[in-house]
């Protein structure tokens, strides 16, 4: 068990290190996400209260699109120069590779969400309250996005059409996450009573289901897909 956790950590550290060296998420995806916040403001009337009302939805739509970009990048790196073959030979358990990658994705997405939250607060004049609920919604949604994204990211990594295929596969799958996370944020931001926990529950079910499925499916995924 300790050995298994060490494997997960090895992959996690390696992925974060790769990100720190290549700076794709930090240097490109993050600016893209902030840019989208500006685009929404241009498209919608910034003086009315449209932006503030729509903030939860805009926030999560931006997260989803950014997540697709991060996923494409991280799995393109794995498909480089025989690395995938090397991973298969490495002696690492496929499920440990999966869980390690998911953890690395969760870390990257949480950083992105934190920056976006600041951006939303400043640009859209949103005051964050009900922090506890918001954090739990964000955490459970992020794990779900990372887990399902890692499955489909690995699946499309070696395909020539991966750049178009990944969003087509992943975004419909994430529809319930978008619905739940947006509703959860609405409730948190507006201090509405109750309801928030059931959305967190649903997000957790999504996250756990895809974590379990990914852990099982990553072996055939690495070997044959």
């Amino acid at each position, binding site marked *: 068990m300790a050995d298994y956790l060490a494997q997960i950590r090895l992959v996690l550290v390696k992925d974060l290190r790769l990100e720190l060296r290549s700076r794709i998420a930090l240097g490109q995806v993050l600016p893209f996400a902030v840019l989208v916040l500006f685009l929404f403001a241009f498209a919608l009337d910034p003086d009315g209260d449209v932006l503030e009302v729509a903030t939860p939805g805009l926030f999560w739509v931006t997260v989803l699109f950014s997540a697709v970009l991060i996923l494409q990048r991280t799995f393109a790196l794995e498909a480089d120069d025989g690395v995938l073959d090397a991973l298969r030979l490495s002696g690492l358990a496929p499920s440990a590779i999966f869980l390690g990658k998911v953890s690395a994705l969760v870390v990257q997405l949480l950083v992105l969400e934190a920056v976006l939250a600041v951006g939303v607060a400043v640009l859209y004049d949103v005051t964050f309250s009900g922090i506890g609920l918001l954090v739990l919604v964000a955490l459970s949604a992020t794990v779900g996005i990372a887990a*399902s994204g890692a*499955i*489909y990211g690995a*699946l499309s990594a070696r*395909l020539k*059409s991966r750049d178009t*295929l990944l969003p*087509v*596969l992943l975004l*419909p*799958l994430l*529809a*319930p996450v978008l*619905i*739940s996370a947006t*509703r959860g944020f609405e409730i948190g931001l507006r201090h509405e009573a109750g309801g928030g926990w*059931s*959305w967190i529950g*649903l997000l957790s*079910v*999504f996250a756990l*289901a*895809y974590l379990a*499925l990914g852990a099982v*499916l990553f072996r*055939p*995924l690495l*070997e*044959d*897909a």
Partner: protein
Amino acid sequence: MTNTTTPRGDAPSAPAPVGTGSTGTRVLGAVALVLVALTALYGLVISPPDRQLGETIRIIYMHVPTVSVAYIAFIITAVSSAMYLWKRTEFWDLLGASSAELGVLFFALTILEGALWGKTTWGTFWEWEPRLTTSAVLLLVYIGYLAVRAIPADARTRATRSAIIGLVAVVNIPIVHKAVDWWRGLHQGRTVMSTIDPEMGGSQLVAMYLALLAGLIVFVWLLIHRFRVAFLAERAADSGLEHAIEQRRVEGATS
């Protein structure tokens, strides 16, 4: 429907008949046609209008079987996907893929009927009614399955990819259901299913069950044929491949 599902008439006299029909499917096709005709008779003529829905309940007679069959199709795809990853046989791969394609077809029809029903009931083709929304999301999920299926790859790779998507997608079904229910539950309007009179009259019930049964038989008939077409396509691809390898060997020997 009437002329297309008809068995192809007399068995060809040639020793190797052409097509994907067999005695079994011809009988099944005939049964399906009779059931469809009976459904039309009960659904359009004999059964009275609904107390609440009026005549539009007749759209529901088409809606219920298509949506049920679509879900059955996706469950078959999921089971086949799991069986493929376990057994690694072509049968499960082709069954899963055939079933997924039919599921997408029936889901598309479901959404179309839903839109027509919505137009008569709400006056608009699209309302964010929970069941229609769920169907639309799931349709998009499974279109992804077909998109991956269409990417050329060797049989094992393609089958593994498809099987993974088949399993990933089926897990999404209950979650999408719950999410959309809770979401739209906030603005509860008239939904397709909840408006049906639970104490449906006799001939209405007959029409509904007939429609379901007809839908099921038509689905089975289509699935068998789709599976055989998929099987033939694999064999045709094999012989094409053998030809290409042979060609390469010849070229290699001369160069």
